[in-house]
């Protein structure tokens, strides 16, 4: 069972990366030069990392569903056109990591 879930997560990552790549090439016509933060990508990254690392917070949803959705969102941002999504991914991971520490270590 755990291997099936593992495959599900990997597939979610692959599909999310492809979706992110295709959509970002439509959205951004130029290479990564201006170094702006995309608000939509930032929201997706934060949501994705929080869902993947802090699935127990969403008790009403089975953990494998929240992790699958989380990985899909992470991959969408991480898989964007080279350069794009870099800052958003780091921010999303930092927020989720702080939340994880608060949830497991401090509280």
């Amino acid at each position, binding site marked *: 069972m*755990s*291997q099936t879930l593992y495959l599900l997560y*990997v597939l979610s990552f*692959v599909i999310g990366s492809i979706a992110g*790549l295709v959509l970002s090439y439509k959205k951004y016509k130029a290479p990564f030069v201006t170094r702006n933060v995309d608000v939509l990508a930032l929201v997706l990254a934060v949501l994705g990392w929080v869902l993947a690392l802090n699935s127990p917070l969403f008790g009403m949803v089975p953990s494998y569903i929240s992790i699958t959705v989380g990985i899909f969102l992470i991959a969408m941002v*991480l898989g964007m056109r*080279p350069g794009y999504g870099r800052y958003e991914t780091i921010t999303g991971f930092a927020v989720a990591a702080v939340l994880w520490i608060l949830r497991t270590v401090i509280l």
Partner: protein
Amino acid sequence: MNLLMANILLNVVLAFLVGSILFGLERKIMARIQMRPGPPIIQYLLHTLKFFIKESAFPKTAAMPFYIAITAMLSFIWVAAVIVGPVMGGSLLLIFAIYALHKIVEHNAGSSSGSPYGKLSCVRAVFSAAAELPLFAVLIIIYLKTGTMNIGSIISYQSIHGPLIYSLPLAAAMFFVLILSKAHYSPFAITKGKDIISGYETEHFGLLRGYLMISESIAWYMLLWVFLTVFIGALSPVGYLIGMVALTAVMAFISATTPLLNPNHSIMMQTTFAFVGIVGSILMIM
């Protein structure tokens, strides 16, 4: 029987996907070290899939049907490795036999194409076989230490005595160098060095190249899986993933910062590692 088939299929698909993503990750890390944006992480996977919709061309110089059969053979041997390893937890000896077959396939893929680049790669594959000494040495050292070649038994041994990486660090280092020689752009990747275009793969196009790339992804996953299983022990899927990502990142760092070695230097360096590893490990066991 159906359950076994499903298990094999699951593990093969997993090995292919994870192996492809790790190859993409390696290129991404290398690019970032070299201050480039680098390709997307799934680039290797996309390349592999792309070859399945490309036209397959066959060189006039190709030795048929060997030229085609060799790609199928490479796929079969690495699928067999998945069955022996993660599915059955069988003998380590079989995994290493499969690795030895991989060398023969590299050699024959190069020679069957008729391309001068392929032939050079073929010669280098024979040449680099001398550097496979660490492979057999690792096998013997593990047997001397654990008294078994069965992967399941080696895992049991480690659950009692602790990971082998602590008691056999030089053997682990030798195996690490062996995996490094299979990494793209590594200093020891002489059979696929860019000085000979794509080595033994140069004249394999379309579908055939797709199969070669699938096999390489599975091979990468399997080599990392064997390293983690034999030297650290049984891990959870997340543990394997973290271990594989960490090993790939280290190899990407080495590949990004070192040039491809001349074949003579590559072999000499690998045999030197082997000598130090074998002597050191035997002294540590005694």
